[in-house]
């Protein structure tokens, strides 16, 4: 596999790029919210490379598709409700409560059986049961039906949604991604064939505040030579609108300036923020309050901007602890890359 940056010469994959790909690939999926900040010595496509690594990781995970992703998002919401919001005395002052969340989980879940429209009369409401924690799965009760208990599974989870949020789309897409480039990039990484034709919104990239084009442009500067194919990092990321032919979007895009997603996304598992403003936005935005965040900045920023990022990390330390686990999982970074990682305290 060959690597090209800008208008320079093709070369072997450099250590820094390999490291970032592996970092995304090794990033653990899970229920603990983690926040990492990576500083680079210059502006680069580092965020894109981490996303690519995480995308390849997700291609090998049979649960990494929108059906399972929705179930996991509901489960994270349920945990927040039971462990934090249910007994909280503040309504809702997260900064005083010191919970580390930004909006309240009310514990109310809406049910809309498949095939029905969302008319008022057909909706049913459920409450999250505290048994969710003990059983480590989503447990709901229906006060309208004499506290009937429900255990939605992966498929039926699509009929449930957090009250006040729109139900996700669940449509089948024609088209398929090519497994070969992704496999080779990570040295024969396992790929679940079904994932090549399933969209996923559990992985998100938060773009630069200068706009979608700025993030795409710097990603397009990186190219890979894989089996006689010349592929841009921007194409490999499968972000909606970044590739002409591919209809399978495995990475959602969050516009940090307008604070809008490129499609319906509910609480992704991981967001990689490209730049200081994107990092600050991602760590505070309610859509990411249960999402792990990897922020990538470069150190050739103005002091005020560096301090804004530092202040954000500092304020998070009230609720987060040093994440030694993640530091053990990822290798020692090459000279020039610095990392700090935190995980939500329990």
């Amino acid at each position, binding site marked *: 596999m060959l*690597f090209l*940056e*800008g208008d*320079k010469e093709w*070369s072997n994959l*450099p*250590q*820094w*790029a390999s490291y970032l790909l592996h970092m995304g690939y090794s990033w653990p999926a899970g229920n603990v919210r983690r926040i990492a*900040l*990576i*500083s*680079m*010595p*210059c*502006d*680069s*496509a*580092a965020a894109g490379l981490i996303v690519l690594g995480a995308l390849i990781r997700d291609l090998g995970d049979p649960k990494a598709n929108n059906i399972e992703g929705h179930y996991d998002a509901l489960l994270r919401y349920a945990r927040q409700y039971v462990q934090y919001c249910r007994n909280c005395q503040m309504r809702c002052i997260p900064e005083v409560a010191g919970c580390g969340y930004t909006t309240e989980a009310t514990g109310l879940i809406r049910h809309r059986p498949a095939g029905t429209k969302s008319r008022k009369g057909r909706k049913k409401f459920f409450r999250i049961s505290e048994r969710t924690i003990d059983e480590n799965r989503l447990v709901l009760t229906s006060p309208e039906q004499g506290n009937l208990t429900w255990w939605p599974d992966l498929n039926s989870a699509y009929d449930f949604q957090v009250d006040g949020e729109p139900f996700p789309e669940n449509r089948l897409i024609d088209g398929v991604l090519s497994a070969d480039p992704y496999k080779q990039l990570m040295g024969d990484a396992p790929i679940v064939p079904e994932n090549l034709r399933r969209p996923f919104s559990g992985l998100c990239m938060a773009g630069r*505040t*200068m*706009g979608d*084009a700025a993030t795409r442009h710097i990603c397009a500067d990186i190219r890979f030579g894989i089996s006689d194919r010349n592929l841009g990092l921007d194409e490999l990321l499968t972000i909606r609108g970044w590739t002409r032919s591919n209809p399978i979007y495995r990475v959602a895009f969050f516009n940090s*300036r307008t604070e809008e997603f490129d499609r319906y996304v509910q609480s992704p598992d991981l967001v990689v923020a490209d730049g200081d*403003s994107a990092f600050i936005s991602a760590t505070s935005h309610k859509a990411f309050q249960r999402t792990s965040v990897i922020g990538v*900045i*470069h*150190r*050739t*920023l*103005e*002091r*005020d*901007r*560096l*301090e804004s*990022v*530092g*202040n*954000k*990390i*500092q304020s998070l*330390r009230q609720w987060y602890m040093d994440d030694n686990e993640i530091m053990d999982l990822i290798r020692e970074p*090459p*000279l*020039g890359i*610095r*990392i*700090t990682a935190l995980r939500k305290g329990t």
Partner: protein
Amino acid sequence: MTTVTASELFQYLESHQNIEIDRREILSFSFGTIRRNIRRIVVSLYDSDDEEALRLARELRAMLSEWLTVPAPFDKVIEESLVSTMGPPEAVQARWGKDILECYELCRNAAQKIQSEESPVRAQLRIVLMDIRARRQRFKIYCHRRSIDHFQTILAEEHQELLPAEIFLNTLKGYRETGPLDVLIKMGPLRVRGWGSVPDALVSSPRFSKLIQVVWAGCNDDADFGYDPAANAGMAGSDDAADVGMPKQNIYSQMNIKTAVTRYGNDPGAFNLTDNDLDDLRIFSTLEQTAEYRPATLVHVEDLHGIFYPPHSRVISFDCDPASQSPVMLRMPGDSLIEGMYVIVPVVDDVDLGGIHARHGHFSEVWKGRLKEHYSAAPDKLIARLRAAGLNLVNLSAAIKHWCSPPSTVIHAPQQVKHFEILINVLEVNHDVEVGTAHHMQPFWQIAWNEVRRSRGEAIQAGFQEQEIVEEQLLHVLSQLVPELRERASRSAGFNLAIPPQHGIRGTFNFLRIEEIETGFRVPNAYLRIIHDIRTVDQWRV
């Protein structure tokens, strides 16, 4: 200029794991005397609550801060600057008392004596430059744009040659685009903000194997210079480390940066025996840390003007890049608003201005004409009358000359409304110029002052909610003018555009091209978001 790629930079860092900071501290007894006495005057004046004392303190502070951070020659300019700022000794004693006079006299004597010496900082820089040349090393000089001339003349004095323009770096953007170097030269301490400040990236992301820092003794580096939020666990601005004048090793453990300090100078004993070498820049930066002053970013626009914005401001702006998807929008200075874009200053006729409107500079022509007349006929008489009326600026003569200059982006006039009123009354413009209608008579000075304010961009600020509504309307208007804006921007750096009449807002858009964006100022609220002459902004530098 080529942009260095990440791969190239990583390759360079891998092969240059040891970075050296060669810090050369310079001592000079004469210059130390000037430093000590200016510092005493400034600290003493800052204790006053008199606006004139504070203004003088700020001017002296800016003057000394500049000498400490640029390689200025020891010539008569130092004495002239002192005299033009402070005035004659009799006036100093009469206005400020004996103690200040004593310090002033010591300063002046030292400033006279110094003219027979060569600045040891310049001598040291010459040695550095000659050595680098002899070794044929790749080098650049990081300095403020306005100090380039001082560097240029260092070699010119003996070798009649100028340093090429491309070796000077003065913006973060320039540093970002710089490829690997052997040596980077910096005059003055490594400060985060204000005078002599440089990007943290110089140390946190070095592109050189050696940094040669020539610095007046006592000017310490900021303890947390080279800040990296990913390495420092978010701790910014900690100032508890001893002022050792060098960055802490543990911050850069990965990089292995080592600092070697050497002292040069004609009076090494002064360092311990007197307070010559206390850190003036640090003392000055603590003097105005009050709530009345807010941190601000300076957007330096064309035609030698600048506008201060408080943190997180959103500025109506235009990006002439054809690839821009939203050419006109609200942007944050230093973040999404960058060099090469345009700040749009709407000069909108609003109720706040009394309902009398005229083209830019109309009323100023009247009073400026009268001012020129009086000043050229009898300058001393005019100055005496202004002083008697209460316009008691120390260097009034220079101020009058400045006010006489014709309107450009702004109308040059006194900064304070009370001074402006005195000026117009002394010129007696009120008596022979009628303005307004029978129903709405206003004194001339009021109308002319509104014109000055409007030229500085103040009119738009009438009320926060009103401002938001007007901004929204203006953005709508501007979004319809994009093709015309692009065409105008391709023809000239800055331009004006009348607001088309069908939009129900009267006024003009001033498009000011951004040349540079600088942080590190603390500015009173009243001075934010208005256009300043660039020569006046240094007083707010931290």
